[in-house]
């Protein structure tokens, strides 16, 4: 299969959906500008025309309502925002209308909208450019919430999101955009609501999402060498959540760590720990754990973000302690990269 970046996979996903269905349109601030939202919307206007692909006024709330109105007449909008944080201005339209429209009018129509929201992190993104609010969105009945990790999943889940009859919040982590992986060409779809076992293991289940899954895989590689076999479950969909896969894996290993890229209190990880504890308590050999962001806004300075994020080392320490094994030397073996606030050498800023 061809190797592509996550950003290219997103671009292909939108183009494929627009090819398949001429009622799909794509808009958002900067969608047609020279940067094309980190390249994810490049060439779409040229290919599909200005009627279907367009820039928009700086009006997140109204433009979400516009997507709802258009959806009521069969238009499927893919709306893009450069950061999740800007989209908070649109919560009235998202929560009061998009999420409930199908329900509150007795199921007579629906609003097929895909809202792409990009999560920032590091490089001074700071308190208002880095929030992981998937738990908020998942809390609202009627919304689907998708968080791909791999380029392949990004494309397959995006096409499914666009063609889904419901509003979908599609969260892309900025640190994944330049990751490379195998991505099928053409019309490639993955079902929403299905988790993926990224790595099979015997001793402990690590449930994760989005960029945290990358850290989980690094931790699992390290722990394998220490004789601990981790099963890594990538949720892919936060709502609906694939409880069957989470339960099956936890029952198999008897231990659970839930990771979250968002704040700890009220997190998706907290929900996973709660549900597993309630429904599979007897299968657990240890109290379940969660690792998420501290309940602190992400600071800006590189000095303040040192040691701030949950990393592979934190996961490995937690896993080893749950296995009653020594946690010495981990920080030396899994040291924080320097600089720690970029996803890789390719990242030169500014955003």
């Amino acid at each position, binding site marked *: 299969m061809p190797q592509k970046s996550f950003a290219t996979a997103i671009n292909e996903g939108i183009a494929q959906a627009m090819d398949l269905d001429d009622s799909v349109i794509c808009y958002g601030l900067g969608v047609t500008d020279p940067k094309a939202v980190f390249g994810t919307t490049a060439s779409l206007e040229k290919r599909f025309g200005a009627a279907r692909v367009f820039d928009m006024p700086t009006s997140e709330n109204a433009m979400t*309502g*516009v997507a709802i*109105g258009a959806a009521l007449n*069969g238009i499927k909008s893919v709306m893009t925002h450069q950061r999740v944080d800007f989209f908070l201005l649109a919560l009235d339209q998202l929560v009061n209308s998009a999420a409930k429209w199908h329900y509150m009018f*007795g*199921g*007579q129509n629906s609003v*097929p909208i895909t809202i792409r929201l990009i999560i920032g992190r590091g490089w001074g993104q700071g308190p208002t450019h880095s929030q992981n609010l998937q738990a908020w969105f998942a809390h609202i009945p009627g919304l689907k919430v998708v968080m791909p990790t791999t380029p392949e999943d990004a494309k397959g889940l995006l096409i499914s999101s666009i063609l889904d*009859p419901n509003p979908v919040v599609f969260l892309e982590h900025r640190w994944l955009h330049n990751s490379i992986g195998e991505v099928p060409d053409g019309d490639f779809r993955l079902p929403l609501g299905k988790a993926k076992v990224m790595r099979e293991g015997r001793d402990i289940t690590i449930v994760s999402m989005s960029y945290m899954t990358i850290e989980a895989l690094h931790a699992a590689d390290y722990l394998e060498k220490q004789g601990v076999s981790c099963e890594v479950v990538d949720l892919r969909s936060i709502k609906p959540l694939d409880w069957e896969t989470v339960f099956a894996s936890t029952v198999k290993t008897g231990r659970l760590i839930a990771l979250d890229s968002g704040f700890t209190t009220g997190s998706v990880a907290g929900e996973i720990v709660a549900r597993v504890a309630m429904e599979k308590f007897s299968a657990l050999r240890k109290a379940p754990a969660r690792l998420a962001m501290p309940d602190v806004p992400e600071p800006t300075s590189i000095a303040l973000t040192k040691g701030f994020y949950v990393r592979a080392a934190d996961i490995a320490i937690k896993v080893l302690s749950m296995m009653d094994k020594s946690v010495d030397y981990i920080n030396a073996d899994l040291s924080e990269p320097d600089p720690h606030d970029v996803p890789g050498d390719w990242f030169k800023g500014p955003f």
Partner: protein
Amino acid sequence: MTESLSINLFAKMYRIRAIEEAIAYHYPEGKMRCPVHLSIGQELIPSVFSEAIRPTDFAVSTHRGHAHYLAKGGNLNAMIAEIYGKSTGCSKGKGGSMHLIDLAVNFMGTSAIVGNSIPIGVGLALSVQLRETDQISCVFLGDGAIEEGVFYESVNFAAVRKLPVLFICENNLYSVYSPLSVRQPAGRSIANMVKAMGVEVGVADGMNIEASQGLMKRSIERVRKTGLPCFLEFSTYRWREHCGHAFDNEIGYRTPEEFLDWQQKDPLHHLEMQLIEDLSLQGLVMDIKSNVMNEVNAAFDFAETSPFPNQHEAYDNVFA
């Protein structure tokens, strides 16, 4: 105005008033177990709208949306049943008075959040532009919605994208119990403010039949012909309380004198007086009233005798 137009407008205004008066009459029985926002006193605007609009055109409205639903041709039985929470309701009991819909006449929904349906109406206009039909999209809103940011966002997008949308603002002076004086500076013209955003505007006295009818008809034709947005402001007045069936002139937010002054301008009363001056029309006016009362009574019977939804249906339709 032709005699037939006068009669049609009388019939439409009378029907809307009679339906809302019947809701007010039955509301204390406690069977309509949801908030209702009546627009008794404001019937002229939806009635002139109804005369000029096509079933294929789109419309959205607000929490005070009964009259707009009816004016667009929405099914009366389904509306009353919805307010009663019955399974035969237009939203199957999921929406109530504040969430009315009738897709058969492209009445696309109403919202309980001030300003919330404005961009949705603009989005419908965008869909019309993309699909290249000759429909227009109409957005009913009140003066309170002018104070919401989403109003400006929506008008701006309609203007920049040149969308066939007609904004119909019913300025009844109050947002719940808050008068315009605490919400907007004295002397402001809402219409002029919108005009500065590059949108054609029109203003009419919403108590004046000829002025309102003429402006509405011309504006609907204009939006259809040019495909450009237009904003209309009608002055009007709600007779009853913000939410509920009663009169509320005694609670102190408005004076009885102000209320009586507006009530004396009632276009429905004046039109009826004008029509029955012609002896040959008296019978027709009586017939219209009698037919409306029969229709209204039948709608309440329909609602009363319809079944409630099954309890498990509360869990249906979360996702499409």
